[in-house]
């Protein structure tokens, strides 16, 4: 166990090292920071002095060590655009992203477990096949397109008039398939409740919760099919196993078998995959936040790219790298704890 931990920590350290080198290299590559700091009329001699003073003439390695040292203290310098420490900027955008991810996770758990279990128990039922069909389609729709379609339907509204609208039944049917729109689809709203520090929450009231609906549904739409399929497959496998058959023979109630014994064993691989999918989820938050102008880290990152705000880009990469490394290590640990039969060394994540 200890050896495993050390090994994982070493890997984590290695990953962070690689990310930091990449981050630092782009920082170095992006033109002259002096140009951003002084006016155009400042003579070259003064620029050179400032360059020397800031240590920009030092060898690459010396500069990198300085960067790494500061990074250890979470000091990545000032954002060019916000003119504030980048860590502060990140911290301000972090809660929005975390809340979006939390809402999405909640949706995924609440929907994927019942649907997945149902589809495994009744694989031939019409409803189960419908779910499987929808999830195949769902996996083929990019998240930003789902988001756009949701905006069109629920925020802007669509009007269909295939039926004669002069007649009572016709207009009733038309209304049925048309939507008014009106769902909020931009930003987090303004009824946020302060929790502490930079954390303002959307979860404290209906007025703000409604802003979470479309972004969270979009984000969930891409992950949901995957989990439904996974839970179904694992559950099917477990149901074939000897001990479930044995439990059946012992006369234990079906419900108990399904939800207590079988599901418990299904969850293990689901947790692993779920952990690995956090990376994918972060990538998808960038897309979702862009569509909904959700003021989280993803949107901030894209804006930073557009603005060539290097310190902020670098900090984002480091923070996201850290999040990945931590979650992956945790998932491995949990996996090891829950299932001691797994050999903790040399196992592919």
């Amino acid at each position: 166990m200890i050896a495993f931990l050390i090994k994982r920590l070493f890997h984590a350290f290695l990953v962070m090292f690689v990310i930091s080198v990449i981050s630092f290299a782009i920082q170095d590559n992006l033109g002259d920071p002096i140009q951003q700091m002084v006016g155009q009329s400042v003579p070259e001699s003064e620029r050179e002095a400032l360059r020397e003073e800031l240590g920009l003439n030092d060898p690459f390695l010396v500069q990198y060590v300085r960067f790494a040292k500061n990074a250890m203290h979470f000091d990545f310098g000032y954002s060019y655009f916000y003119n504030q420490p980048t860590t502060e900027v990140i911290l301000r955008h972090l809660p929005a992203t975390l809340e979006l991810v939390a809402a999405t996770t909640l949706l995924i758990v609440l929907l994927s477990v019942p649907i997945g279990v149902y589809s495994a128990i009744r694989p031939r039922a019409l409803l189960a096949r419908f779910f499987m069909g929808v999830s195949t389609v769902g996996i083929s729709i990019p998240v930003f397109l789902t988001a756009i379609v949701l905006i069109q339907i629920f925020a802007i509204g669509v009007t269909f008039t295939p039926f004669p609208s002069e007649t009572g039944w016709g207009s009733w049917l038309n209304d049925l398939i048309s939507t008014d729109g009106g769902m909020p689809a931009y930003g987090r709203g303004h009824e946020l409740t302060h929790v502490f520090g930079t954390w303002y929450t959307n979860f404290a009231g209906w007025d703000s919760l409604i802003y979470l609906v479309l972004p969270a549904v979009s984000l969930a739409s891409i992950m949901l099919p995957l989990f439904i399929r996974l839970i179904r497959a694992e559950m099917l496998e477990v149901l074939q196993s000897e001990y479930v058959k044995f439990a059946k023979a012992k006369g234990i109630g079906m419900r108990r078998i399904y939800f207590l014994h079988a599901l418990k064993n299904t969850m293990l691989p689901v947790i692993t995959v779920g952990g690995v999918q956090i990376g994918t989820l972060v990538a998808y938050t960038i897309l979702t936040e862009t569509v909904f102008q959700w003021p989280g880290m993803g949107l901030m990152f894209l804006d930073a790219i557009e603005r060539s705000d290097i310190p902020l880009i670098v900090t984002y990469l480091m923070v996201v790298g850290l999040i990945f490394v931590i979650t992956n290590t945790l998932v491995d640990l949990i996996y090891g704890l829950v299932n001691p039969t797994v050999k903790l060394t040399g196992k592919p994540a």
Partner: protein
Amino acid sequence: MTFKKTLLATLVGAAFSLPLIASAQDSDDITLRMAYDADPVSLDIHEQLAGGMLQLSHMSFDPLVRWTQDFEFEPRLATSWNQVDDTTMRFTLREGVKFHSGNDFTAKDVVWTIERLKRSPDYKAIFEPIASAEAIDATTVEIKTKKPYPLLLNLATYLFPMDSEFYSGTTESGKDKGAIVKNGNSYASRHMSGTGPYVVTERQQGVKIEFERFEGYWDKKSPGNVDHIVFTPISENATRVAALLSGDVGFIAPVPPNDLERVREDENVNLETLSGTRIILFQMNEERVEAFQDPRVRKAFAYAVNQKAIAERLMKGFATPAAQLSPKGYDGHNPDLEMRYDVERAEELMAEAGYADGFSITMMAPNNRYVNDARIAQAVAAMLARIDVTVDLKTLPKAQYWTAFDDHAADMMMIGWHSDTEDSANFYQYLTQCPDAETGAGQYNSGMYCNPEIDAMVAAANLETDRGERAKMLQAVEKALYEDAAFIPLHWQDLAWAARDGVNIAPVINVMNFPYLGDLVIEQDK
């Protein structure tokens, strides 16, 4: 004491709510909550020459004169002025004006402020023409210019007298109170004493500024009835609009073009737009492309571009198509100049110049600097294709565009320009004069267009102090540039503000984009 919860997007970039104690002492007090895309970086109005700082200047200070909506001068701290000789102007100052500190406003404050402006890195270039300022008596100031200078009144709109007594002396740590320090913690960047309608009561950089109406404000005739102003920066466009639509703030600027329709359709909100003064144009580089040295080719290009189509279709009417640099209201605006657009004529001109089969050029435009900039460039490229000119277009984010612009990296480049002095000559000086690195003339003339005759006309106009006479000269310049097709003008970008019903912004807004909030009226029953 009423507690009111309100949204403040407290920090640039994210919408957070912050419980705010409205410091209203009695319920009749009127509070305006407003949101801009950014807040002023400092309380020292001479630290930076930027829109946000000028807005602050108009709230806490008063200029000697200010512009009206139709580009006339309105007396403020100066009540009258007269030209003594070619290089001397005498201003008579308003009596009985007090600074926020309680000090009396006198001529020595004006002199002190001019001297400070001439030290400010951002302002010294603009105030360069001024030779000296002298207090004749307590209410008379005489300003001398180095040469006859027709724009002294334009400059006076930037002259917000500061409280010389308040800013003189040294702080406890021995620093000069009047020092101008860029991005620094100078005394002036944290303390303020002006004559303006609002006193800053609280300020958190990047979060909010609170203002309270100055009790001793001299302008008793001002209709303004707002007692408190809470100013919040909300940089995210959609969030800013949402804050207005939900009623969290009463006034926002700018209104992003993508949201104009939403704002216009909302019943509780009024959208105000004015035809702006920022010209968007393309310059044709005569050094990179030999063909552009031929005025017929430049004219052919100008004939090929349909400004009205761009303004109507791409800009959705949120722009005024332009045939020249000077917008309506500027002295140089020549009403005789009309949009060219005539593809047949363009083809004829190309054939005359020997380019009947067209040629290939490169083009660059920013993609996040001006409204719809990248699409405008694509539309122009499409229009040029009509006369067989093949355009290789690249669009760049503004962070990278200006370096490319300075390098003259493409044959045609887009630029938008607003005249700091609200005067036509500023356009010519930066955009069309023969480039000269030493004098800084033609600094943004990426086309390398050079016509010494026109430059001479501009120089003559800049020495003419009679406004009517000078206007004629400037209009002649505008016509000459038009005849020469020195550039391709596209349109003036419109400006937009939006406010809740009852917040009467229409009378106080102006194309300079700093609403005179001291005169703002909020209808109380709303």
